[in-house]
């Protein structure tokens, strides 16, 4: 039964979203009806090999799903599902490249407008990527190259069933990636040009020197955060990646918080000679208290994230050992 669900899962993946449930329901019934009939003819349950043989006869999941697509002239239905996936992957790689470029520009201490310029260049890059991918697949179609999977595909290579828990959608991940990138660019640029963070308040307040010393750690945190989100774009069901990312980000956050907690002068007045010094001291004390609370929450988060990671790993190892 597991192989049937895995087969249907693979078919569903290549179908248009609006028809996924309806089509797989119908296919499930068809497969089960065939199995019922064969089992009553044989007087016994079908073996695993017999079930796999039946699935093999139905054709590869991609090929079966492609038959539900309307015919297209430029790119045929047999390679259309693969085309969509390659195009999506290429566009996502372009998003990650643009995000990385923005971070690199901000990390180099260049003005914010340079990062924005790189970000606004994405539509041009996306059009170029779309053109090249489409051209490559149209050529493949035109010259008659085919993905001959019908005879060679092996049901045993179907991916395992995934848990029902809904993974984040790609749209959510792209939004998350954009927010992370914008925030990282703003923060990293702002450490060099504090007007971006303090606004008009720069006339009264500055960051203490410690913040700029922590720049490399902030940079690493931004890169790690964005990289994991970028990786999740390719496989939204990569739960282990999400857990690892939480552990690393919590650990990095804790290191930063501990350093900040040991620094008396988190903020300094723009004009130390004035009476503002005493007010800034009060703000620093309040900030230390706030950071202490955040650090305690972070320790709890780190412990929870690390425990989940270990539990998931042990559970995975057990399933492998049990052969499921």
């Amino acid at each position, binding site marked *: 039964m597991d192989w049937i669900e895995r087969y249907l899962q693979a078919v569903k993946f290549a179908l248009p979203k609006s028809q996924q449930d309806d089509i797989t329901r119908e296919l499930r019934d*068809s497969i089960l009806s065939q199995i019922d009939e064969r089992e009553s003819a044989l007087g016994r349950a079908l073996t695993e090999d017999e079930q796999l043989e039946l699935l093999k006869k139905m054709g590869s999941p991609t090929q079966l799903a492609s038959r539900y697509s309307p015919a297209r002239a430029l790119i045929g239905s047999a390679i259309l599902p693969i085309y969509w996936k390659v195009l999506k992957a290429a566009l996502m790689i372009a998003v990650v490249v643009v995000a990385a470029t923005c971070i690199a520009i901000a990390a180099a201490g260049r003005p914010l407008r340079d990062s924005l310029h790189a970000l606004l260049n994405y539509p041009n890059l996306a059009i170029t990527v779309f053109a090249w991918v489409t051209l490559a697949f149209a050529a493949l179609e035109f010259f008659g190259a085919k993905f001959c999977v019908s005879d060679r595909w092996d049901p045993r290579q179907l991916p395992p069933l995934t848990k029902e828990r809904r993974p984040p959608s790609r749209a959510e991940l792209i939004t998350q990636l954009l927010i992370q990138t914008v925030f990282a660019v703003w923060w990293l640029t702002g450490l060099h040009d504090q007007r971006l963070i303090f606004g008009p308040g720069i006339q009264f307040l500055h960051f203490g020197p410690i913040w700029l010393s922590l720049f490399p750690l902030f940079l690493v945190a931004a890169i790690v955060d964005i990289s994991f989100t970028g990786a999740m774009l390719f496989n939204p069901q990569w739960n282990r990646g999400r857990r690892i990312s939480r552990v690393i980000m919590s650990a990095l956050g804790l290191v930063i918080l501990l350093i900040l907690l040991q620094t008396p002068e988190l903020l300094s007045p723009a004009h130390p000679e004035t009476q503002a010094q005493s007010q800034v001291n009060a703000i620093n004390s309040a900030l230390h208290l706030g950071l202490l609370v955040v650090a305690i929450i972070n320790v709890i988060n780190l412990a929870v994230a690390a425990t989940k990671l270990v539990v998931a790993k042990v559970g995975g190892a057990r399933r492998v050992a049990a052969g499921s």
Partner: protein
Amino acid sequence: MNSEVLENLRLELRRGCLILAVLAELRTERYGYTLRKALSEQGMEIDEGTLYPLLRRLESQGLLISEWREEDKRNKRFYRLSPEGKVILKQLSAEWKGINASLDGIL
């Protein structure tokens, strides 16, 4: 090369015939699996990858009506000819008989 050409031509020839056969079989309400079996028993083999998308297409063209119902403790999608489908089937049958008579003479 020759067998590939033959296979393509055979598929092309069968395509129209299959539509006619499916429409004719669905004068009686059936679900996918029993329809496939009925066709097969009369010498019209058709695989799932061809039949189910075809049923979906004919339904979207308004020639078939379908509904989900439980039978033998399982949900099945039952198909039958729509009133429009009945008219089309009648016209296609007449067309088929005409072509068949002509081909008999030609061949």
